[in-house]
C-alpha cells in the first residue's frame, strides 16, 4: 500500500481550498492572491511525488470514489484515472500555472478585482484537472464545459470593452459547436457500449467507430481551434495576458487534443479517421501560420502560433503517434506560456502597447525579457536540444518516415518553416532596431514576481524537454534509421525560414511604402474566414427562419395563394391585352380606315 492515490488526491483537493475559503470570507483580504499562488506551488510539489512513483514503477491507478447514480444499466461514479497521460500532465500544468499566477501578481497588480481574477484562474485550473483525470466521459464533459465557462468569464474580464464581450461570446459559440460532436459521441457510446467508462469502451473495442470518432474530432476542432472553428482563438486575446498564457496556450486548447489522445486505442484501428485528422491538422497548421505572418498585434501572432502548434499536434495524432502528441503538449506549455508572459512584460512596459509596429529597440532596454523571448522562440521553432526539439523534431521525423499523405506532410513542413518566419518577425519588430514607441517610457522589468516566474519557465523551456523525455518509459518506438536528409528536414526548413525572414525584414529598411497586395490582405484578414462566416450564415438562417415562421402561414397560405394571386393575375393580363389608351383620334382613324377598306374590298372583288 503506497501513498500514490492519497498523495494525488491530496494534491488535487488542496487546489479547492481557496475556493471554499470564500465561504469564510477570507478572500476579501489583500493577501489572497499570494495564498492562491502558494497553494498551487504546494500542490505542484505534492503531485511530483506520485509522478515520480509512477515513472519508477509504471503503475497506473484508477480511483473510483463515489457512486453517483445508476440510470437503468448505466453506472455513473466519480472516478479518477491516473495513468501515463494525467500523471505527467498534472505536474506540468501545475508548474506552468504556478508561474502564471506569480506573473499575474505583477501584471494585474493594479486591478481592483484581483482576488476575483485569481479565483477564476483557480476554478479554471480545477476544471482542467477534472478534465485530464477523468475516467468516464461524463466527468470529462464536466471538466470540458467547466473550462469553456471559465474561458468565457476570463476572456470577458474587461467587460466594459465591446470587443472583449464579442470575443467571449465567440469562444462560447464555437466551443458549443464542438460540444455537439462530443454529445453525439457520448450518445453513441451509451447506445453501443452501454457505458461511459473508458476502460469498458476500450475493452469492448467496437467495430464501426466512425461516428463517435467523428464526433470527438468535431469536439477537438471546436475546443482546440482547428480550421473551421478557429476564429475564437485569436479573438480570445482580448483577455488579460495571464489568461492568454494559461488558457489559450497551455491548458484549455490542448483539451481537444487530449481527448483524442485519450481515445487512441479506438483511433489506431480506424484509418479513415486518422486520415481526416491528419488533413485537418495539416490545413490548420498551414492556414494559421500564413495568417500569423502579417498580424500586427503581438498577442495575436502568438495566438496563431499556438493554433499552428495545435494543428501540429493533431497531425501527430493523425499519423498514429498519440504519445508524441502528448509530449508536444507538455513541452509546448512551457515555452508558449513563457512567450505570452514576455509579451505581457513588453506590453506593460510600453504602457499597454500591443502593436509591434510601435515597438522596437527593446533589446537593450529590457534584457531579461529579450533573453527569454529569444529562447522561447528558439524553443518553439525546434532548435536542437532545447525543449521543443525533443517533441517537434521527433514529430517531423516520424511524419517523414511514415506511410502518410504527402500533401499533409508538405503542408506541415511549410508550416514549420513559417514558424521560424513569424518568430523572426516578432523578434525583429519588438526587439531589434530603433525604438518606435513614445519617448516617455515606463520600461521596468525589475519586479521579482515577473523575473522569478519567467525564470522558472525559462529553465523549463531549456531543460524540460530533455528531462521529460529521458524519464518517461518508452511507449512507441521512434524511427531510428533514416536517410540524413530526412533527419535534417526540420532543421533545414527552420533555418531556411529564419534566414528568409531576417533577409526580408532587413530589406524593409530600404523599401518604399507599397499598397497591400491581395496575398497580404488574405493573410492579414485571416483568410476572410471570420468576415464571411460571422455575417452570411447567421443572416441567411435568421431571415429564412423569420420568413418561414411568420410569413409562411399568414401571408402566403391565407392571403396570397388564392385571393391576391387572382386579382394580381387579372390586372396584369388585362393591362397586357387591352389596347384602350383613351386616344379618341386613333379610334376614329381606325374606324375610317376600316370603312375605306371594306368599301374598297366590297367593290373591287369583281
Amino acid at each position, binding site marked *: 500500500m503506497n501513498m500514490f492515490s492519497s498523495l494525488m488526491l491530496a494534491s488535487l483537493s488542496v487546489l479547492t481550498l481557496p475556493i471554499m475559503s470564500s465561504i469564510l470570507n477570507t478572500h476579501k483580504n489583500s493577501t489572497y492572491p499570494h495564498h492562491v499562488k502558494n497553494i498551487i506551488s504546494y500542490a505542484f510539489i505534492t503531485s511530483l511525488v506520485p509522478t515520480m512513483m509512477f515513472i519508477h514503477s509504471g503503475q497506473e491507478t484508477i480511483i473510483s470514489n463515489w457512486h453517483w447514480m445508476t440510470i437503468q444499466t448505466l453506472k455513473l461514479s466519480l472516478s479518477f484515472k491516473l495513468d501515463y497521460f494525467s500523471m505527467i500532465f498534472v505536474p506540468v500544468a501545475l508548474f506552468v500555472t504556478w508561474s502564471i499566477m506569480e506573473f499575474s501578481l505583477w501584471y494585474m497588480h493594479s486591478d481592483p478585482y484581483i482576488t476575483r481574477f485569481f479565483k477564476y484562474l483557480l476554478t479554471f485550473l480545477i476544471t482542467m484537472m477534472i478534465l485530464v483525470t477523468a475516467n468516464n466521459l461524463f466527468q470529462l464533459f464536466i471538466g470540458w464545459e467547466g473550462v469553456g465557462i471559465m474561458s468565457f468569464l476570463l476572456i470577458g474580464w474587461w467587460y466594459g470593452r465591446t470587443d472583449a464581450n464579442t470575443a467571449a461570446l465567440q469562444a462560447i459559440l464555437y466551443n458549443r459547436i464542438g460540444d455537439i460532436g462530443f454529445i453525439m459521441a457520448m450518445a453513441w457510446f451509451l447506445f453501443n457500449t452501454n457505458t461511459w467508462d473508458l476502460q469498458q469502451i476500450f475493452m469492448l473495442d467496437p467495430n464501426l467507430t466512425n461516428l463517435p470518432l467523428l464526433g470527438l474530432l468535431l469536439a477537438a476542432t471546436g475546443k482546440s481551434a482547428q480550421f473551421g472553428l478557429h476564429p475564437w482563438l485569436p479573438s480570445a486575446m482580448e483577455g488579460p495576458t495571464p489568461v492568454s498564457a494559461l488558457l489559450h496556450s497551455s491548458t484549455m486548447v490542448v483539451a481537444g487534443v487530449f481527448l483524442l489522445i485519450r481515445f487512441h486505442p479506438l483511433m489506431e484501428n480506424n484509418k479513415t479517421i486518422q486520415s481526416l485528422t491528419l488533413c485537418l491538422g495539416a490545413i490548420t497548421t498551414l492556414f494559421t501560420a500564413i495568417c500569423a505572418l502579417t498580424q500586427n498585434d503581438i498577442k495575436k501572432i502568438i495566438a496563431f502560433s499556438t493554433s499552428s502548434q495545435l494543428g501540429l499536434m493533431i497531425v501527430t495524432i493523425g499519423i498514429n503517434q498519440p504519445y508524441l502528441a502528448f509530449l508536444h503538449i507538455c513541452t509546448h506549455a512551457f515555452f508558449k506560456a513563457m512567450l505570452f508572459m514576455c509579451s505581457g512584460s513588453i506590453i506593460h512596459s510600453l504602457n499597454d502597447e500591443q502593436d509591434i509596429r510601435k515597438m522596437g529597440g527593446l533589446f537593450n532596454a529590457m534584457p531579461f525579457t529579450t533573453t527569454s523571448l529569444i529562447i522561447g522562440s528558439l524553443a518553439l521553432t525546434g532548435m536542437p536540444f532545447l525543449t521543443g526539439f525533443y517533441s517537434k523534431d521527433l514529430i517531423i521525423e516520424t511524419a517523414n518516415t511514415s506511410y502518410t499523405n504527402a500533401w499533409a506532410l508538405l503542408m506541415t513542413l511549410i508550416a514549420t518553416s513559417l514558424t521560424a518566419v513569424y518568430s523572426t518577425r516578432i523578434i525583429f519588430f519588438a526587439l531589434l532596431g530603433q525604438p518606435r514607441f513614445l519617448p516617455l517610457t515606463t520600461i521596468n522589468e525589475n519586479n521579482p514576481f515577473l523575473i522569478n516566474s519567467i525564470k522558472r519557465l525559462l529553465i523549463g523551456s531549456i531543460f524540460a524537454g530533455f528531462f521529460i523525455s529521458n524519464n518517461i518509459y518508452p511507449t512507441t518506438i521512434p524511427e531510428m534509421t533514416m536517410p540524413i536528409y530526412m533527419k535534417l528536414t526540420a532543421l533545414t526548413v527552420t533555418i531556411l525560414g529564419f534566414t528568409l525572414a531576417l533577409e526580408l525584414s532587413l530589406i524593409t529598411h530600404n523599401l518604399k511604402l507599397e499598397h497591400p497586395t491581395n496575398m497580404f490582405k488574405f493573410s492579414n484578414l485571416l483568410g476572410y474566414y471570420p468576415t464571411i462566416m460571422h455575417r452570411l450564415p447567421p443572416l441567411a438562417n435568421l431571415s429564412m427562419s423569420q420568413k418561414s415562421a411568420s410569413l409562411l402561414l399568414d401571408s402566403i397560405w391565407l392571403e396570397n395563394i388564392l385571393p391576391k394571386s387572382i386579382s394580381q393575375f387579372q390586372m396584369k393580363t388585362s393591362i397586357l391585352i387591352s389596347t384602350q389608351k*383613351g*386616344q379618341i383620334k386613333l379610334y376614329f382613324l381606325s374606324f375610317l380606315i376600316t370603312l375605306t377598306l371594306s368599301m374598297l374590298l366590297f367593290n373591287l372583288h369583281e
Partner: protein
Amino acid sequence: MINFIITNMSLVHINIFLAFTVSLVGLLMYRSHLISSLLCLEGIILSLFVIATIVVLNTHFTLASIIPIILLVFAACEAALGLSLLVIVSNTYGVDHVQNLNLLQC
C-alpha cells in the same frame, strides 16, 4: 366602281356624295379640337338632309316628305347634346383638346 358611279350618276349626285364624304372624313380625322368634330357632324347632317330632300322631291314620294323635317329635329337635339358635352369638357380642362379625354384607360 368609279366607272359605275360616273356613268350612272349625274354631277349633282357626285356633289352631294362628296359633301357627305368630306364631312365624314372631317369627323373622323381632326387635329385637336373637339368642336371641329362637332362641326363636321353638322356638315354630315346637312348633306344627309339635302340628299333626303332631293330624293323625295325627284321621285315624288310625297308620303316620305316628313323625313327631312324629322331629321332636322333630331339633328337639333343631337347638336345640343354635343355642345353640352363640349361645355363640360371645356369647364374641366379650359380648352377642348381631345387628348385630355384619356381618363378611361387602364
